[in-house]
């Protein structure tokens, strides 16, 4: 029973001694990732969190195959990643829909690129419905709000049923309320399709609200500081005690917990 389940679920990510260095404009070698090891079980939701420059986006792009590692590697379901593939969806911070295509054609883009659109037409309709864009299929991206565009971009990344969805701060450009609504949306998509999700975020609450595991990263030298298993049932409440306790823990690791100075005199 257990083995059968393991066979069904695809999208395991294994990261082994991953090193990525850049040559900066001044000619110095910058280490963006300094020997990262991480195992992500299939079907889990992992958030990468940390300050700017900790390499979380670099790590995500390595998994996507958008950049090649200096040494070490990323393995997806046992196969080494060398280039992007349709098994790994990617949602960018900006929706980056193509302005010359309407919403439906944008969502269908991946299926058309792989010449499997005809067989999967109804998948497109299903996803338009799932992300709540029914009635807007013929609209162009500039006619819709940022939140709607971002939903279309999630649908575009998911419509080909990738085993893994990589999210690079997909909600970073949205306002706070749209953002919270979209978090529910992402959670629902994850529960429905059992996709392995890896999300880069700056937002501790967002990471806690959605993830099984929060990977806390640190900059200079960039490395994984700690992996925290978030042992809370879904749906989660942002106000529950354990949620707040996890937030405190993560902020402390990141040295962002803050401190109220002790008063000099007590009256």
């Amino acid at each position, binding site marked *: 029973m257990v083995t059968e389940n393991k066979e069904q679920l695809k999208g395991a990510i294994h990261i082994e001694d991953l090193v990525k260095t850049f040559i900066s404009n001044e000619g110095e070698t910058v280490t963006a990732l300094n020997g990262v090891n991480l195992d992500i079980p299939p079907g889990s939701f992992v958030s990468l969190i940390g300050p700017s420059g900790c390499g979380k986006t670099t790590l995500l792009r390595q998994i996507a195959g*958008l950049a090649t590692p200096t040494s070490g590697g990323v393995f997806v379901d046992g196969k080494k990643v060398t280039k992007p*593939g349709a098994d790994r*969806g990617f949602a*960018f911070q900006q929706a980056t829909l193509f302005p010359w295509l*309407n919403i439906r054609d944008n969502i269908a883009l991946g299926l058309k*690129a792989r010449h499997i659109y005809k067989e999967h037409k109804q998948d497109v309709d299903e996803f338009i419905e799932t992300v709540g864009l029914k009635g807007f299929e013929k609209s162009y991206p500039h006619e819709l709000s940022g939140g709607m565009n971002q939903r279309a971009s999630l649908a575009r990344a998911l419509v*080909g049923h990738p085993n893994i969805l990589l999210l690079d701060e997909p909600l970073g450009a949205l306002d706070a309320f749209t953002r919270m609504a979209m978090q529910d949306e992402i959670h629902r998509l994850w529960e429905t399709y059992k996709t392995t999700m890896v999300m880069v975020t700056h937002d501790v609450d967002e990471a806690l609200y959605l993830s099984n595991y929060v990977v806390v990263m640190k900059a200079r030298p960039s490395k994984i500081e700690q992996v925290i298993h978030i042992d809370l049932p879904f749906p989660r409440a942002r106000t529950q005690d354990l949620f707040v306790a996890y937030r405190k823990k993560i902020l402390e690791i990141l040295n962002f917990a803050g401190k109220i100075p002790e008063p000099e005199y007590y009256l």
Partner: protein
Amino acid sequence: MINILKRFLPFLGTVIAFLVHVLIEDDIEHPEAEDTYYSYFLYFFLTATFIIGVVSFFLKNFRAKLEHSGPFWGGVGVVVAIIDIAIGKYALLPVLFFPKYDNILAMFFEGYDIILKCIWHSTKLLVLGFVYGSVIGFITGVFLGFSKKFNYWVNPYIKLIGPIPATIWIPISLTIFPTPFGASVFIVALSVWFSVALMTSSAIQSVPKAYFEVSRTLGASGAFQVFRVGIPAAMPSIFLGVFYGIINAFLALMTAEMFGAKYGIGWYISWQKAMLVYSGVYAGIIVIAVYCMLILTLLFKFRDKVLNWQKGTLKW
């Protein structure tokens, strides 16, 4: 009431031009044309503008348009009348170089066959040159935009040759091509080619990298990225290149026709000038103006069709 007036302003403008024409005698310095062509011209427009004004009572959309453009066309009538006073009526400028309307219109009424022949000749030249130039320019631009190797080996030559006015090559192309017509097509094509190639390649190079990354993560092949991502994204700027290209083409066309051509609007003008028939020169200029305007309108219509998605994002 004021809106009804606006709709009849084109008619009123024509009435002013007509009154000026019939109430004041032409200056006797002007040679007389064989017929009173300008009167015919005014009769036609009196009737046409009146009918337009009446029709506007029945067509709602047309009415709104006419209320917007009516004052302008009324103004055109006044400008026509002022020019008539200055030139036809009082000969304030030398009559040899500034003929009166009758004489310019005579060129159309009496020589329409040769003018039509010239338009046809120029159109053949322009269409052939434009099609060759823009297709080759587009292909050059796509290669320049996508291929680093091609860019390295070819771009310096293009930078060297491109900015030179295409008409400089007329003497050489006349010796290379067996007919002056072929040489002219080459010159027109060359003038279109550069701006289309330049705008295409720079547009492709400035397509946001994110578009290509998106398509790669969706499993797109290289061909898909070229034809379904890069080129559509670059289309607005490519069109700008085509627009500049056709303006260059007009210029090249007029110059090219002045060498060794037997017909053509450019040839017609230089021929009339050589014979000191300035009414013919003006007739030719009018033909060119209307002709260029028609072609640009067509081009813009086509652009609106192809770049429908741009509505609301960009206008030029």
